[in-house]
């Protein structure tokens, strides 16, 4: 009963519409959760709970949104930017995310931009295929 990418996107879209009170045309592939859709920290947990319910999976928080563990490790951050070590860690932790743009200027203030609708769809797709 595998869901195709389009179905996953539609379910993710619905979750975000309900959790963030946004319109369906705002929830595009490239929309960022914090910048474009106005998500705050508690919303991330709300989204995780809703995704778990919608897809019948368990989502460890640091798996989908792993920024926190990076931010708390001094080895990974230098002068407000992620170090090479930090980037390696990020690549490993966020295989569901396209890091190409971020790597050009790994400013930690831009980490939030990595949490896109597309990243969630990728994550769910990987997770469902692994199940």
């Amino acid at each position, binding site marked *: 009963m595998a869901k195709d990418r389009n179905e996953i996107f539609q379910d993710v879209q619905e979750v975000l519409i309900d959790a963030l009170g946004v319109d369906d045309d705002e929830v595009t592939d490239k929309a960022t959760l914090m910048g474009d859709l106005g998500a705050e*920290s508690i919303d991330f947990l709300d989204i995780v709970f809703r995704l778990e*319910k919608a897809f019948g999976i368990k989502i460890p928080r640091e798996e989908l949104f792993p920024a926190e563990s990076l931010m708390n490790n001094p080895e990974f951050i230098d002068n407000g930017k992620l170090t090479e070590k930090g980037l390696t860690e990020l690549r490993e932790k966020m295989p569901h995310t396209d890091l190409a743009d971020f790597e050009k200027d790994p400013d930690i203030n831009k980490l939030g931009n990595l949490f896109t609708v597309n990243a969630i769809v990728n994550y769910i797709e990987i997770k469902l295929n692994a199940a």
Partner: protein
Amino acid sequence: MRWIWIDKFIEFETGRRAVAVKNVTLAEEHLHDHFPGFPVMPESLCIEGMAQTAGILVGEARNFQEKVILAKVKKAVFFDYVVPGDTLTLEAQIESIAPEAAGTTGKITCGKKLIAEIDLMFSHIDNNLAGIEFPEENFVFTDTFKSLMRGPAFSEQD
């Protein structure tokens, strides 16, 4: 200040659901201002009553070790007014609970009449994302709140 918007629990299933009642009376002063000649219980206070019902349910699920703070009103839809003389039944259920937070669903009824549907999110603030530290003492679940944890709904645990 006695900021308590439920009177007692009538059912309590650890980690699952709780049912509280609230008797609304004209002796509550704010009803004379809200509104003069047309007293109705403010909907914000109905949400607070649900937050207390659901918050105690969430707190008890972790043995009151967590500081449980209302973090988000996911949904609050009202279908009717609450007026003096009404006995409200507030039923809350835990939908999800994790180390950092919990989500609840709930409804308020008056007899058979549906008053409101209220879904909430609570943060366990010692496990907050920003890593901010709070005092060790549990300032959420004070004795005043715990005094609600008596009576028939808890008789098996007494």
